């Protein structure tokens, strides 16, 4: 289930760019004497939109969308697309947003599916920032 959710930085950027849909997850970041900590919590016992909204407004927490929600928002709100394609090797994928992702040798970069999702989202957020 954890794999479904965007990272703290991505959730923060999405929030800064106006993403305010209800989310099933929330991330918190706090500092203790031994360093900085980050948590992801999610709840699958919500029953209504209202309770979700209430939870999402809990002070100090950052609503955390799923990758799918984030990509849908970018598609619908900003017209931004991405594509994750099979690289021909089991478990490896190439990724495309406004261009393909390349490695240092200039070849198509290979990712796990989750890495590809994250790389696409990072680049799409950069595009939104530049807009």
């Amino acid at each position, binding site marked *: *289930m954890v*794999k*479904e959710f965007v990272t703290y930085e991505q959730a923060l950027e999405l929030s800064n760019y106006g993403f305010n*849909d*209800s989310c*099933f997850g929330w991330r918190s970041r706090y500092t203790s004497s031994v360093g900085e900590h980050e948590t992801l919590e*999610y709840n*699958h*016992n*919500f*029953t*209504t*939109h209202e309770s*979700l909204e209430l939870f999402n407004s809990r002070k100090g927490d950052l609503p955390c969308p*799923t*990758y*799918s*929600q984030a990509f*849908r928002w970018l*598609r619908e709100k900003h017209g931004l*697309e*991405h*594509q*994750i*394609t*099979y690289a*021909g090797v*089991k478990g490896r994928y190439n990724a495309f947003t406004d261009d393909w992702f390349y490695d240092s040798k200039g070849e198509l970069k290979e990712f796990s*599916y989750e890495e590809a999702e994250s790389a696409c989202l990072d680049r799409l957020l950069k595009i939104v920032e530049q807009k």
Partner: protein
Amino acid sequence: MEKEFVPYDIALRLKNLGFDEPCFGLYNLPEQNLGADLKFGGNSNKYNSKWKFSAPTFSQAFRWFREKYNLIFQINYLFNGNYQVIIHKNTHEYMNLIQSHPHSCVDEVPDNYSYEDAELSCIGKLLEIVEQKLK
């Protein structure tokens, strides 16, 4: 938020194939006459009552097909604004089933084929492949 979740019939077919991961949504079985509306507050099919079953998101279901059945598929954006579903023939275990389709691309792409249409078509094909395999 509702767009994230697979529809009732797909959720039921996933349950029948053994999908039992924790979910954020659930459906009631029709025998209970509670309607088939999506409710938030899901659980794993392992723990749901016999009258309820989990409603996974498309993303969860796709991940399940990738990880459990090693199926390889993708939704491509076509620059005319439509989307296309591709299920790769080098999904080795299922090659014979997939080869019954004329191309590795299993979709005709009609006009106004939205991302949601593509998701639905893709998951329908994946279910068909696994259901045939398990027959």
